[in-house]
C-alpha cells in the first residue's frame, strides 16, 4: 500500500527554493504528487503531498531533507497522511461558487464570513486574502471558492452573506462558477 506525507516549507523567498526541495525529494526517492506554492509577501510557502518510498518515514524525510533546505533557511515540516485521504478520487460534481469580499481593513472579517459559509453547508475549497490599497487606506480583500453540499441552499447563503454587509462594512458578491465538461 502506498504511504503519503504532507510536507510544508516556508522561509524567505529567493530563487532556487523549489529546485532545491524537488531535488532533495527526488534523491530520497519521494514522488511529488500534488503541490501548492505561493508567496505571502516576501515569504515563500509551499505544501507538497509526496508518496514515500519503502522504508522512509515522514519524520525521517524531514531530517534527511535538512542538507538541502537548511542552507536556504527553510522551515520544513512533515506529517504522514492517511492513504484514504491522499489517494486520487474523482472530484465530486458539487456546484462551485466564487465569493469576493472587500472593504476597509478591520479584525474579524474572515471569521464572520467563514462562519456563515460553514453554517450554510458551504465548504471553502480555496481562499486567498490580501491587504491592498494605499498605505493610509488599507483595503481588505478575500476571494473564496465555495463548494456547496448537495442538500445545501446557495440562495440562503447568498442572502445571509448580504446580511453581513452593513455590520461588517464590506462589499461582496457571491456567484456561481460555470463548469462545463466537453
Amino acid at each position: 500500500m502506498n504511504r503519503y506525507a504532507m510536507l510544508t516549507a516556508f522561509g524567505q523567498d529567493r530563487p532556487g527554493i523549489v529546485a532545491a526541495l524537488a531535488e532533495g525529494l527526488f534523491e530520497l526517492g519521494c514522488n511529488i504528487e500534488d503541490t501548492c506554492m505561493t508567496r505571502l509577501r516576501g515569504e515563500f510557502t509551499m505544501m507538497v503531498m509526496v508518496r514515500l518510498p519503502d522504508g522512509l518515514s515522514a519524520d525521517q524525510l524531514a531530517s534527511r531533507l535538512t542538507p538541502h533546505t537548511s542552507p536556504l533557511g527553510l522551515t520544513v515540516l512533515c506529517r504522514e497522511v492517511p492513504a484514504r485521504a491522499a489517494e486520487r478520487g474523482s472530484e465530486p460534481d458539487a456546484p462551485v461558487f466564487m465569493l469576493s469580499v472587500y472593504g476597509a481593513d478591520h479584525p474579524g472579517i474572515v471569521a464572520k464570513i467563514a462562519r456563515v459559509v460553514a453554517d450554510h453547508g458551504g465548504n471553502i475549497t480555496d481562499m486567498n486574502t490580501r491587504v491592498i490599497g494605499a498605505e493610509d487606506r488599507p483595503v481588505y480583500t478575500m476571494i473564496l471558492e465555495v463548494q456547496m453540499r448537495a442538500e445545501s441552499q446557495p440562495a440562503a447563503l447568498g442572502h445571509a452573506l448580504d446580511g453581513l454587509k452593513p455590520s461588517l462594512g464590506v462589499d461582496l458578491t457571491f456567484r456561481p462558477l460555470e463548469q462545463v465538461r466537453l
Partner: protein
Amino acid sequence: MGFCDNLLIVAAQPILLYPDPALKAKTARVDPANPEVAAIVQDMLDTLKASPGVALAAPQIGRLVQIIVVDVSRKKGEQGHGLVVLLNPHILQQDGPRIIREGCLSLPDYTGNVLRYERTLVQGLSPDGLPVTLATSGFEALAFQHELDHLDGRLFLDRIESLSTDLFRRKS
C-alpha cells in the same frame, strides 16, 4: 425493421485519453466528396451517442481530420442548433470574454479556469459540402470553441489563464 438493419454496424469508438498522441497532432482538411468522410462522421455520431458528452472532435477517436460534431441539446435545458456536423470549421469572430471552469472527456476528472467567449461565429462545410455559418452563444459557443481547439491539438490545459492568486499580482 428491414433486413438491412442487421447489417448496420454501430461503430462507437473509445474516446482517446491524453497522453494519446492523436490529441496533440495536426489535423488535415477534408474533402466532403471523399466517401471516407461520411464513414468518419458516422463513427463520430455513434461515439457521441454512446458518450456522456455533447460534442466530439475527430482526433478524439484517432482520426486526424478537421471534423467536429456538436449537439448541445444532449444536455438538459440546452437547445442551440441541435445536432451540427461541421467539416473544416474555423472561427470567424468571437466576443464577450469570460472565465469558465472547463473539463474534457479526453482528460477526465480535472477542470481548469480558461478564458472563453460568450458568442462565437463559426464557419465550415456541412457533410454534403455546403458552406455553413453558425452564430452560437452561451454553452453552445463554449462547445464549438473547445472542439475547434481539439483540431489544433490544443487542450484546455494549454489555455489555463491564471492561478487564482494572479488576481492579486501587483502591477510592476
